[in-house]
């Protein structure tokens, strides 16, 4: 995995708009991100069910963290 692929995956995991755009047209977003041909092929076949579940769990974690921070600020 190149550093470029790592950056690409991190963005796909946490950025909902980017993820939706990627899922609409995986090849185009992967090429735009500068992935190698092998990486483009690999992300075109990404485990979409797993991706959506993982992204949802990350979002839940972020919401929990925000709620905790807000509670601390109110103390």
């Amino acid at each position, binding site marked *: *995995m*190149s*550093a*470029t*692929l*790592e*950056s*690409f*995956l*991190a*963005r796909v*995991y*946490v*950025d909902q708009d980017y993820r939706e755009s990627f899922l609409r047209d995986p090849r185009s977003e992967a090429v735009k991100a500068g992935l190698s041909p*092998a*990486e483009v092929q*690999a*992300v075109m*076949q*990404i*485990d979409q*069910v*797993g*991706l959506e*579940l*993982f992204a*949802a*769990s*990350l979002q839940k*974690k*972020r919401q929990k*963290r925000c709620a905790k921070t807000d509670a601390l600020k109110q103390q």
Partner: protein
Amino acid sequence: MAVVEEDVVAAEVDSSKRSKDLFGLGWRPQLAAGILLNLDRVDLVEVIADDFFKAPWRERRALRTLATQLPVTLHGVTLGLASSVNVDRRRLDCMARLCEEIVPLSWSEHLAFVRGGGIEIGHLAAPPRCDETLEGTLRNLLLARRVVGVAPQVENIATLLDPPLSSYDEATWVAEIICNSESDLLLDLHNLYANASNFGFDPVAFISRIPGSRIRGIHLSGGKWVGRENDQRILDDHLHDVPDPVYALLEEVGARTEPGLTIILERDGEYPPTEILLNQLDLAREALARGRARKRTVVFREAAA
């Protein structure tokens, strides 16, 4: 960089010389009182190291005091060792300073990447299991060993997503890392159970791929099924009790390892009464003992043959 007296720390953290299994809990503020009131049933605690990297002096002093009362292991969550990118040196320096201060039984990190291109993922992500991440992980483990003075134990992670671009199965990838580094395995049995369920492989075959002498730590926890009805997966959320298949896997570990393991029950929320967690530790003791009894039976049979 923190200067670590390598020999001193190495002597403290070399768990392979210990002949007793230690059972304990992940240290969380919500569990603190319950743990301290039950030190006859809790042999050690595992502390999230990153919480103390920039902690005020008072909190670090409290951690030092805790470490004088019972053995402590330090567990990292943000180093991101399993990456083609070099591990953040400042975070490693923080870990080194904390290890020097606390002198833990051992320290550990996950086989995960946690950021990329300046974006913090906010959780552990499974890297593609390929040669690049294998090389990057080994490089990062060497640096971690050099900076901290002792190699970290490395933990297999749970994943909901089968990582793209993987040319190795998980067992091969983890075994390659263990066999080509000084790092022993912190085997998270719920992570293993979750991945085996999610992606259809045999968790016992996974355990068999790792040399028993290189499994030094165990994590236990619970999770839940998530997703659509026709494609559900197990989420390792640490909010539920340890399920029976995880105890069965612990028995398998017992049949393949020598005493000297540290077994930690992790719980990160929806905390039950302490007694419920202590009972789960008792179940873990029983499961490991069953495995060890199986091992002794095999040894006796071989000796008699």
